[in-house]
């Protein structure tokens, strides 16, 4: 396996191009394989090549997506699925916030239609409620991403924090239902329930019997 003869600057430029593409692969995979893949890529290069071909680019990016969709070595499938469910719940939470913002006027109108005598006060109350949701929503998203990272790392504290977060999210759903939110804001509330269901599925997977050794083992490594 000999690299084709090319100038040092061409070779360095091509290598940089390949490294940029390999950066899309998961860190654990790169640690294990990057140098070896790079050696093969350089050996397959044409003599005057200075940048990766479109074919190689597409192939490497496709490989990166495939590797991202696989559990890392030693990671149970349950933990892997739980992390993807948390990421999905982050997306639905973002969709929920957008829907809430887009339907704010309709929500206000439907509450006022039910209690016309208190239109002014209700207008303020709905505004306040939506503002609170729009502030706490992004914070919730940041917390969920942080928890997903801790779960990927196998941190026991992350698992406990996720259980607490789920408890808070259950209370939030119950509070919304008690306020007839499903009647006044069916779209946002429906998506919100979807977020809760995804989080519930993730919590079941994180506390599944198959997931426990992953967290225990990582704790041992850390201590």
């Amino acid at each position: 396996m000999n690299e084709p003869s090319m100038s040092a600057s061409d070779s360095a430029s091509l290598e940089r191009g390949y490294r940029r593409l390999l950066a899309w692969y998961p860190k654990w995979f790169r640690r294990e394989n990057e140098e070896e893949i790079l050696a093969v890529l350089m050996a397959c290069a044409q003599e005057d090549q200075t940048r990766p071909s479109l074919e190689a680019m597409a192939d490497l990016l496709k490989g990166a997506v495939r590797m991202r969709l696989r559990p890392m070595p030693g990671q149970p499938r349950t933990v892997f699925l739980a992390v993807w469910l948390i990421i999905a719940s982050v997306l639905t939470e973002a969709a929920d916030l957008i829907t809430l913002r887009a339907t704010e006027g309709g929500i206000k109108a439907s509450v006022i239609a039910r209690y016309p005598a208190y239109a002014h006060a209700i207008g303020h109350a709905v505004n306040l409620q939506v503002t609170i949701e729009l502030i706490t929503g992004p914070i919730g998203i940041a917390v969920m991403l942080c928890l997903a990272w801790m779960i990927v790392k196998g941190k026991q504290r992350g698992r406990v924090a996720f259980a607490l977060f789920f408890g808070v999210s259950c209370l939030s759903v119950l509070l919304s239902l008690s306020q007839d939110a499903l009647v006044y804001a069916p779209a946002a509330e429906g998506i919100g329930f979807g977020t809760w269901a995804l989080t519930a599925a993730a919590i079941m997977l994180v506390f599944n019997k198959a997931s426990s050794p992953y967290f225990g083992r990582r704790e041992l490594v850390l201590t």
Partner: protein
Amino acid sequence: MQEATFLILTALAAGTQHGYGIISDVAEISDGRVKLLAGTLYTALDRLRADGLIGVDREEVVDNRLRRYYRLTPDGEKRLAAEAARLQAHATAALRRLNLNLAGGVA
């Protein structure tokens, strides 16, 4: 089993090979029809290693580049043999039917 996977296992059936060697061998086995690219090869190798069908035989550093040699495991040999037998049975059945049809057509 995907064709690329089958060809990678076939390339390793004759002995240990490094990544570039597998690419060249697959091209040779398939008569140039299958051109494996590095991304496809290494995602396949990762999957085959995780499934226990191949293993790392040894590593070398040549011209400051890492070269890792892969080998077929006993499970990999069994799996390849089973897949080859399955494909052979299908090919035999297809040829037999074609011969029958041709014979019928001539008659």
